[in-house]
């Protein structure tokens, strides 16, 4: 599955890569704020931005200014892609953003299991264990090939190879991190079929990324999540969250089977710089490289 468990799509180790937001237009803070995402820039070799829009009311009569400010901000920073998240219920704001060139690429949901009780998940029937150094190569192999969800994979103008590379580096970083980062694998040593990356902070855990080898036995996905929840409960975690694509029905059903509930639907939109050299043709008939 990407199974294919492209669970969350947030950046690991936020503390080390916190984006610094500033007004999109220095002379007009009411248009919203934006930041270059350091982590994604480091991975892709070109700059990626994130836009936090002002309210619909602030923007409604000023789409021309917003469009100009977006282009100027991106050009000044050689940003090729700008992402934006808005509540899914605010379809008017989404439409406004689409009028200045954003395109919706994904609908995301938050999954929450709280309170996590010890009986919430039975022990898995396959090995689900903390990754050790011998699992590293297999984890990176799965990370760079098995994920098909997440906003970069969902964007038809974003190169698939770059999106795959991002997840490989994501897991490289996660495996190198220390306290608070947990990487679990499904399968015995030598037969790892999937992995799960979570950040643990006291009684709370956030599942950031999970993937299962597409060719692996189909039971690996459900057992990986069951095993992870079981282990988190054993470690004293009482609240587990994750963000995922609403299109990832396979993972949604697994979370639902474990008792997770869903909220905070968000539309994820991308804006592309008109002359972005790294992005692929928007021709829908062309296969993505």
């Amino acid at each position: 599955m990407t199974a294919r468990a492209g669970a969350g799509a947030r950046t690991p180790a936020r503390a080390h890569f916190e984006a610094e937001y500033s007004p999109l237009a220095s002379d007009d803070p009411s248009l919203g704020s934006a930041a270059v995402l350091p982590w994604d820039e480091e991975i892709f070799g070109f700059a990626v931005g994130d836009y936090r829009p002002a309210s619909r009311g602030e923007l409604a009569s000023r789409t021309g200014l917003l469009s100009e400010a977006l282009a100027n901000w991106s050009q000044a920073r050689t940003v090729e892609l700008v992402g934006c998240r808005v509540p899914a219920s605010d379809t008017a704001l989404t439409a406004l953003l689409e009028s200045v060139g954003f395109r919706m690429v994904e609908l995301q949901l938050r999954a929450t299991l709280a309170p996590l009780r010890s009986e919430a998940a039975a022990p898995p029937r396959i090995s689900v264990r903390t990754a050790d150094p011998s699992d590293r190569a297999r984890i990176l192999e799965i990370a760079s090939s098995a994920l098909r969800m997440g906003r970069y994979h969902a964007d038809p103008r974003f190169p698939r190879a770059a999106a795959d590379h991002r997840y490989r580096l994501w897991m490289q970083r996660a495996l190198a991190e220390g306290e608070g980062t947990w990487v679990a694998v499904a399968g015995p040593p030598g037969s790892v079929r999937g992995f799960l990356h979570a950040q643990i902070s006291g009684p709370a855990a956030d599942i950031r990324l999970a993937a299962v080898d597409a060719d692996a036995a189909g039971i690996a996905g459900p057992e990986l999540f069951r095993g992870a929840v079981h282990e988190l409960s054993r470690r004293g975690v009482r609240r587990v969250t994750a963000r995922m694509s609403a299109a990832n029905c396979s993972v949604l059903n697994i979370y639902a089977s474990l008792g997770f509930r869903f909220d905070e639907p968000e539309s994820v939109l991308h804006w592309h710089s008109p002359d972005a050299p790294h992005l692929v043709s928007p021709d829908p008939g062309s296969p993505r490289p």
Partner: protein
Amino acid sequence: MNDGAIVDLIVETVEGYRVSTGGEGGPVARETALFGPSGALDSLGLVSVLVELEQKVADRLGRTVSLMDDRAMSQASSPFRTVGSLADYLGAQLSGGASGR
């Protein structure tokens, strides 16, 4: 239990799962893909079918088999690809003298 009977048991279980979940699909046979892009089941459905299958083997044969464990994960090729590959895997466990009850 011969191969034909094992296949029949799997087909019965998959079709029963489909009925219980309101799922649709064509006839289930030995070559039917169980899991994957063109498979009859999603991952949760596969788990449900395997659990049901283990229970049926216990009820009808008095034998305990474990279809979902690290042995399955360690196979070079997944035993859950098709009805036939699952039948082979279950048949091997039954002929291998899995612990009885």
